[in-house]
């Protein structure tokens, strides 16, 4: 069975490219338009991995990571930030919240897939 990955981003075009890349490589994808939407969906659905933007309305990426790590069903999934932000301070903030990795946009499809394969084992 294909692994299920959630992409959370307020930009529809970024979600589209992430979904396209993952689906092309045999993964199933569920989309969330912001952190709040993602957290709601993750409350009732088990996924194998989360790829999230940092700056989103309603709930940002850091808040989302904290929420997921505090949840039950997706508590231990790998979470990779996919953002335009590249400051070390922000990366440290993400890491401390529980992020597994950090990708600065724009990503190349082969990079994203390599990271997904690595963190999914």
């Amino acid at each position, binding site marked *: 069975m294909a692994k299920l990955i959630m992409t959370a981003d307020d*930009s*529809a*075009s*970024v979600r*589209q*490219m992430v979904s*396209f*890349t993952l689906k*092309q490589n045999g993964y199933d994808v569920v989309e969330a338009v912001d952190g709040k939407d993602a957290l709601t969906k993750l409350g009732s659905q088990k996924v194998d991995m989360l790829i999230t933007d940092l*700056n989103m309305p309603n709930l940002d990426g850091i808040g989302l990571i904290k929420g997921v790590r505090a949840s039950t069903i997706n508590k231990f999934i790998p979470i990779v930030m996919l953002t*335009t*932000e*590249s*400051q070390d301070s*922000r*990366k440290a903030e993400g*890491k401390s919240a529980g*992020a*597994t*990795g*950090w*990708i*600065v*946009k*724009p*990503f*190349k*499809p*082969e*990079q994203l897939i*390599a*990271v997904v394969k*690595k*963190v999914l084992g």
Partner: protein
Amino acid sequence: MTTKFCANIQKWQAQLPTVLDILRSLAGSTEDQFLELGEKLQDFSIRSTDISATARNLVELVAGPESSVLEEQLRQLFTDMNEYLVQVKNQGVESCLTLEQIMVQLDNVVRPLEGFQKMDKALRMLSISTKIESARLGELGAGFTTLAMDVEKLSQAVNEKSSGIMSQRLSLSQLISQNLDMVRNTEAHQYTDAANILTAVGGNLETLSSLNSSCSETGNQVGLISEQIVADIGTVVSSMQFHDITRQQIEHVIEALEKLQNHRISTEQKTDDNCQSFVAETGDICELQTAQMRHAADQMTKATNAILESLQDIGSKQAQISFELQQALMGNSGSTETSLLDTMEKEMYQVTQIIQRCGKADQQLASAMQKVTGTMSEIGGFVSDIEAVGSEIDLIALNAQIKAAHTGTQGAALGVLAEAIKRLSLDAVTQTEAVSTTLKSINAITANMTDQQFLTSGEGEHNQVEEMEEETQRIINALSAINSSLLQQLSTLANSAESLSDDINKITSGIHVHEEIQKLTSKTVDFLEEIYTEARSLVPASNEFRNNLKDMEHRYTMESERIIHEMMAARHGLKLSLQKRQENSGTVSEFGDNVDLF
């Protein structure tokens, strides 16, 4: 001066809402176009993957293991057919020689057989003369009546046997003539046609072999092109994200300009110093945001151009795959109606037809040769009978001489008849020997024939032809299936590649989003440039700006924004921390310098 500073501030603040409106429309208006483009990209990618798969299938079909095995079997069959034809041709030549030799011998039989017919007449005459003389002698010639009847019976036997041989000779001669014609005809046409077609098949086998090699090369080429297409799709995916990146950059410019717009100076605060300071700040912000906007627009234009070029590249590369396979498989004709496999299929069918005819001729010849040996054995029987006739004549002559001697002088005439019978018996021996010798020669030839393969191997050869026919049919079926699949897939490939290329061209020629962005950005940049040029002419950049730059460095979240910021700082003689940090950091993750795994 104060009035001038304040008047300009008022003018710029009146212009800023227009600039902000343009920027806000830029930040949010292009998402739908990019989403639509993203959907098209998915469609193009799926179609492109299908085309690459069809191309790989085609290469596998022509240069894969199934084709290699088939080629090897075809080569073996080609060798078998060649050997069979050589064997049958050699047998034909040998058969012709044998038949020609028999014909000569059969001609040699004619003269002695004619002698037998003369002997028949003489015997009948002698029988009549003996009867007359016997009647004339009355009591004395009574024993000669039996002699006359014996001579008559002998004449009938001679007639019967010699006519039998003559009749057999004639039918044998006709049979041989017909078969000689058939063998010569087969030799003149079938073998030559078969040899010509087999030569063509041999040539095509070599072409098939080189086709397999060139197809394998094309397969590698297809693989490389497919990799380039994957890279093109990757470039599009990366470039598509610049829509979001640019939107964020524009939002940062909007934030900076909104801050400037919200910075109002009340009438009481409009002092010389305050206004001058505000002009300097306006110059600082507008100069910096002009650079950021320029960079964002350039980045967006580059990304969109990369999307257009990559998409067009996908279309042209798939068309190239289709063309190269078309060239490799169909040659320069460009026709999808005929292919090498198609030609070979037809040739193999023709060869089978000829081999079938050769096989039939071969069987016919074997059957004729068997008839010849059968007839020769019958003739052999006649020869024994004729030899027996010779001995009988001899005995009759001796008996006649004895009876004539017993009769005394009155039987002198009968003595003459007995002499004549004796001479005939000698003639009969001579003729019999002549016929016998000739027939023995023919028997020797036919005995030699039975040693040759074609009399005994007719059935075996028939099986061989049947096996070759079955093998040919199997190979033809396999070739036909490959050929049909090849033509179908080539046609699908050509249509799919053409349709993809057309759709990509249609879509890319309709993409003008980057031009619209560029146009609106130019308008914004012109506004901002005008403001900061005026501001700088009133108040040049100060140390305060350099300090501001240092403070503002932390506001930028994107690397590219910070780089612009740094460049601006460098232009004003300031080296910022980012430059220092970049110089110090050299570690790149295994996934690229934009990826960190914790």
